[in-house]
């Protein structure tokens, strides 16, 4: 115990040097935590965007639908299939969709639109569609009305309670057409979805397209997104080869690749940060070793075992790194929470690039405790590894040479 007290006192023998080291660690931890939280936040947000805007975590289609996305590749869902899917523990809920294309017309303006027949309640559970409502009301399953995305409504110069006409090709080449009132306007962060989406109750869509009780997909949400791959494999083996089971990464491979590439770039930034921290700590350790060489020689001369001296120096290093880490983590908490509540918004070419992927260029920081703990532990490990140097010097110390002036 006295060794710990001695180390604590030693840590403060040169307050300025300790303060500089701690400040280096402190700022490094803040930067590291902020960078990590932003990285996680950005990617979580991207995945959440992908999942909640459209794809869900997993989709189930009739085999071949993804290669040829036409109504003729739809399927009739039965209760047995639904049960097999819902039996998987990680599944929270399931929502059916019938997706197709139609021309939307109002007055003399006509635009192409993605028409999605949905189970309003089931869809809301997975993609929180109701929360995207900016005017009017959310649709019910038996409504003869649609939800229009804000961008499409603006292009058609329409608002809630106006009327639209849809015309397109139905199941097996029939003509699909209908006149519907707009019950509400929904707004998406993704410009792609915001400019061309139209949602209608599933029975209405099935009726318009003459598709009977067919659907094109089941969209699933998960309890634990981290178990995505395992869950998709389980579903695949449960429902057989007649269907294709796709994860969001398979549905949007470009976004997955973007996340992976960005993740690698961020890793490089982190390594540079860790390198800077390492040099900061090592510099101080070297100064400390030179400054206290005589004293260390004296300690060994009067009978302090080298292993004890090494332990003392290691405890000092750990204390310094630990204090810097704890202070850094404590101060990074409000910063990260601020960046979560007030996310970074970028403009220019980068923003356009994000919009091309269909997302808002908004970067909220992740507040997951993991980021704070993980970064703190990494910096602590760096400190521990670097404290091997004073340990090594302590074991090599020759008291006569050390005390030579």
């Amino acid at each position, binding site marked *: 115990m006295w060794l710990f007290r001695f180390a604590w*006192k030693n840590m403060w023998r040169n307050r300025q040097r300790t303060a500089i080291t701690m400040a280096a660690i402190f700022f490094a931890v803040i930067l590291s935590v902020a960078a990590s939280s932003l990285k996680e936040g950005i990617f979580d947000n991207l995945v959440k965007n992908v999942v909640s805007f459209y794809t869900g975590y997993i989709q189930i289609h009739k085999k071949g639908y993804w290669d040829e996305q036409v109504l003729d590749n739809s399927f009739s869902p039965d209760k047995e299939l639904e049960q097999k899917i819902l039996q998987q523990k990680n599944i929270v809920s399931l929502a059916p969709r019938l997706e197709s294309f139609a021309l939307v017309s109002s007055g003399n303006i006509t635009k192409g639109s993605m028409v999605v027949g949905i189970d309003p309640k089931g869809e809301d559970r997975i993609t929180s569609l109701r929360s995207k409502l900016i005017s009017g009301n959310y649709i019910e399953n038996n409504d003869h009305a649609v939800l229009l995305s804000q961008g499409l409504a603006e292009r058609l110069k329409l608002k809630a309670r106006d009327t639209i006409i849809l015309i397109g090709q139905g199941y097996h080449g029939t003509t699909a057409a209908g006149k519907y009132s707009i019950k509400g306007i929904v707004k998406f962060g993704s410009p792609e979805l915001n400019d061309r989406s139209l949602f209608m109750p599933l029975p209405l869509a099935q009726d318009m397209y003459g598709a009977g009780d067919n659907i094109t997909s089941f969209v699933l949400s998960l309890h634990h997104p981290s178990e995505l791959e395992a869950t998709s494999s389980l579903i695949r083996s449960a429902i057989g080869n007649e269907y294709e089971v796709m994860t969001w990464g398979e549905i949007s491979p470009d976004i997955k690749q973007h996340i992976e590439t960005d993740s690698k770039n961020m890793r490089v930034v982190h390594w540079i940060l860790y390198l800077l921290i390492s040099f900061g700590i090592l510099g101080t350790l070297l100064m400390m070793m030179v400054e206290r060489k005589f004293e260390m020689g004296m300690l060994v001369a009067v*009978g*302090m075992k080298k292993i004890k001296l090494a332990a003392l120096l290691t405890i000092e290093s750990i204390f310094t790194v630990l204090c810097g880490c704890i202070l850094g983590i404590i101060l990074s908490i409000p910063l990260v929470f601020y960046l979560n509540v007030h996310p970074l918004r970028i403009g220019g070419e980068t923003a356009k690039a994000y919009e091309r992927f269909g997302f808002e260029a908004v970067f909220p920081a992740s507040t997951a405790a993991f980021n704070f703990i993980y970064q703190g532990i990494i910096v602590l490990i760096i400190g521990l590894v670097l404290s091997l140097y004073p340990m090594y010097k302590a074991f090599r110390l020759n008291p*006569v040479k050390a005390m030579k002036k």
Partner: protein
Amino acid sequence: MNNTVIDAHNISKVYNPETIPVYAINNVHLHLEKGEFTALVGPSGSGKTTLLNLIGGLDKPDNGNIFINGIDITRLSANELINFRLHNIGFVFQSFNLIPVLTARENVEFIMLLQRIKKRNRENRITQLFKQIGLEDRINSRPAYLSGGQQQRVAVARALASKPQFVLADEPTANLDSKSASNLLDIMDKLNKEEGMTFIFSTHDPRVIERARRVITLVDGRISSDTAVVETSIPHHINS
């Protein structure tokens, strides 16, 4: 009863043995008994500090053996030597070398903590030592708040804390003014006379030489004279 504390036979220390050999210590025989108050004197480079390092177990001779209380310390491993020093030898350095972050009490206690002495025994010893050095009122001061003389007295207390066989003091008065040096010598003299503590100094200081009861003069790594001083202050030649 055998009172021999240090018995060094034929010890030599050579630097640069393969290029231009320099004999820091050349074939020295030294015999010190319990209760001696001995000064090692000689010009700079004569080998005083090297000899102190050798008999203090900080360095090993290239030739010869050093027996301390009958133990040949030249045969001990580095770790055994550290442990041996902790329990048998007290050190006082020229520039005090107290640990600046510890108080006077903690500096003295430090040695006993290394020895794993129980708290109660430590407390008793600390009280006794600070009484002996006359610094009871400065026991909780840090070295920075003590004068040079006071620091050196604490260093003496630290050297005595482990109840060593002898104390090696490397130019203990070199950084002290006359009054402080005199005080320090009084304390060491008293400890020597009343408790029989053995002191060996390396020094240039005539004040120390004057108080020593044996003066060993080194020249070029050899003992050129070894003089015992009787209580009447008339020098008595042992050998030369």
